[in-house]
């Protein structure tokens, strides 16, 4: 009583299936969904379809977008692009170093962002100092933009601490491992920005941006974050990095239509940006944060990108995807297209590129040196800052534990 129809339906990339039905919300005609054969072959949807907002093509050709201007004087464009190039090269470099450090046993795990540099730097550089970001665990590029030194990311992956910075000081939350949790916290923070009167026209106006992946869109917390944000017009940008994969599950497993459409169910704007185009990510995120700051939040942005490396260093992608898929996406590399544009337009010469590479190597060396020198915190760190108020039970268990440890020094341990 095997159900062949079901088996076929699962194996194909339904993405979008013609429904032939009336009524609002009938699945829109398929735009760019890959054919079933393509998906089986592992060749994912490498094109974002007509809805994709792009300023810089994979080949390095730049065309400004009428709806999403880069709010800066044209003369300052070369300086902007060279800065973004530097950001992406340096971030990719320390990310690669993180992978290597894990392989050499210096880190328990590393979560690579390879391929998502443009999606993160574009959004990170779109933020104003007073804005607040809520990351998941892969946003090393956004951390970089918020002035968090890469070495501050090492503790969580080396196992010596959970958060190495002050979230309010940096405007960048601690890494959040439980998928979706940080998105509803971001909405709450944004509700607080509005309550403080920081939504409106003033220069002090603030916004919040929540980062999450394609897999996270299935979690109830992400839904409730959007419900509350729509209910309270909260100044929060929901920034989904659709890197096509949630560990071994393709994005088709989470949704039959492109994810940016999700906002249509709540009544706020949603758009798909080329996640490998740093200029598009910058322009669209700037627009979205300004909308939120002025009271027209929330906004959903789907950055259509690709997870070039494994999910983490403990993952083996060869078990669930084809190598040729990664090859196809290499042609859309976020750094390559910027380099081609800078070189072709003469904005930058080889000396510039060499200088950046040298700086990247220096950063990687400092990153490595810091990592290998990291020490294990003292055991009583386990008891520190569990509560903000005095706590007799914590004090007692700390005292008992330290007495127990002392016992080993003089070999007459006594664990009360």
């Amino acid at each position, binding site marked *: 009583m095997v159900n062949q129809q079901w088996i076929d339906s699962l194996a194909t990339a339904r993405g979008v299936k013609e429904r032939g039905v009336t009524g609002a919300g009938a699945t829109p005609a398929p735009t760019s969904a890959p054919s079933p054969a393509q998906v089986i072959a592992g060749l994912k949807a490498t094109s974002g379809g007509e809805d994709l907002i792009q300023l810089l093509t994979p080949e390095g050709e730049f065309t400004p977008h009428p709806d999403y201007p880069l709010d800066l004087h044209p003369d300052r464009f070369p300086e902007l692009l060279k800065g973004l190039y530097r950001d992406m090269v340096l971030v990719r470099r320390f990310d690669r170093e993180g992978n290597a450090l894990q392989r050499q046993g210096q880190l328990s795990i590393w979560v690579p962002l390879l391929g998502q540099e443009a999606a993160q730097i574009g959004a990170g550089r779109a933020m104003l100092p007073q804005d607040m970001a809520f990351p998941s665990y892969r946003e090393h590029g956004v951390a970089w933009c918020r002035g968090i030194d890469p070495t501050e990311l090492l503790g969580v992956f080396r196992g010596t601490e959970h958060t190495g910075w002050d979230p309010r000081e940096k405007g960048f939350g*601690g890494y959040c491992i*439980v998928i979706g*949790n940080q998105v509803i*916290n971001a909405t*709450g923070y944004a509700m*607080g920005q509005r309550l403080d009167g920081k939504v409106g026209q003033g220069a002090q106006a603030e916004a919040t941006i929540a980062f999450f992946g394609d897999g996270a869109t299935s979690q109830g917390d992400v839904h409730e974050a959007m419900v*509350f944000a729509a*209910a309270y017009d909260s100044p929060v940008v929901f920034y989904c990095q659709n890197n096509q994969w949630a560990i071994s599950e393709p994005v088709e497993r989470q949704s039959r239509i492109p994810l940016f459409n999700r906002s249509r169910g709540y009544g706020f704007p949603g758009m798909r940006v080329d996640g490998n185009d740093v200029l598009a990510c910058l322009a669209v995120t700037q627009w979205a944060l300004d909308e939120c700051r002025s009271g027209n939040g929330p906004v959903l942005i789907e950055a259509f990108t690709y997870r070039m490396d494994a999910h983490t260093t403990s993952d083996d992608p060869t078990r669930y995807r084809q190598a040729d898929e990664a090859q196809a996406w290499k042609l859309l590399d976020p750094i390559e297209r910027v380099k081609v544009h800078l070189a072709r337009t003469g904005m930058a010469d080889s000396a510039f590129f060499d200088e950046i590479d040298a700086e990247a190597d220096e950063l990687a060396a400092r990153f490595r040196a810091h990592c290998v020198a990291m020490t294990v915190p003292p055991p009583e760190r386990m008891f520190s800052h569990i*509560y903000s108020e005095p706590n007799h039970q914590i004090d007692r268990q700390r005292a008992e534990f330290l007495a127990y440890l002392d016992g080993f020094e003089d070999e007459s341990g006594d664990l009360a």
Partner: protein
Amino acid sequence: MTTTSVSADAGTNNGHAGTARPDATPTTLARALNMGLRASMDRDPKVLVMGEDVGKLGGVFRVTDGLQKDFGEHRVLDTPLAESGIIGTAVGLAMRGYRPVAEIQFDGFVFPGFDQIISQLAKLTFRTQGKVKMPVVVRIPFGGGIGAVEHHAEAPESFFCHIAGIRVVSCSNAADAYFMIQEAISSDDPVVFFEPKRRYWEKTPLDVASHPGSTFSSVIRRPGTDVTVVSYGPSMPVLHAAADAAAVDGRSLEIIDLRTLSPLDLDPVLESVRRTGRLVVVTEAPRESSISGDIAARVTEEAFYSLAAPVLRVAGMDLPYPPSKLEEYYLPDLDKVLDAVDRVLAY
């Protein structure tokens, strides 16, 4: 199985038995909570109240009645119907510097918000080594005996006592309600605040000027010499009734109200047990892997040589809460407590 009528909880503000203070006014527990919330909101503009039906309706038990009218919709928020959303946005508001008081409408509806409580609310301060504080209060009307449909009469406090990083407290009279809610709100720790809904309309003395100091400690409500009986919130009147009935048989019960369920303030309990040698723990929560087992285990470990009998427990059975027509068989009552006193004295 009818329960004999129970006297109002004879507890007073400062935890000393004895007559009410001159300027104390009989006040319902719900009213005392309303007054306490109002006092906190008056004192600190960062205090918010949020939850389903807490604003315009004033809450299904009227505990937040009138607050939206007086403090405005921006400080008393009627939220969309989603508990993870309520706790999750409260966490975000706290990161922004607010002091949210989130209401879970009934005990059985806290579980959609359980993940945000254990993964974010309870852990953010440790995760950030103190750089982020979580001054959030989660108010939960709990306990049985109100003839309600499923999920409206449960005692889920043991789950929260098992979570490190949050405090768990329960008030059992108007004075404690008034002062404990303010202490919870002003604390920089997240506090899960259990309110015995069956007793919302019971009047006990409240003197708002009495300034009782910390109300998060265990308190001897009634001194006694033969058996120590410990509980909190919903069951306190049962303990007082049992003490009255036992006195008739010449047995003196010492009644202790824990008030804080985590971290437990066991010293007064240990001091008492070292005198009486016998302890009965009374809770509505099911027995298995619960706070009642933890109290019994810790008292036995720390006062082993004083115990003339094992610590006995009068707790809910390990069953889903029964349909309301059978709840009085399930809930701890006068007879069950007296029976436990008999048995603990029989060793």
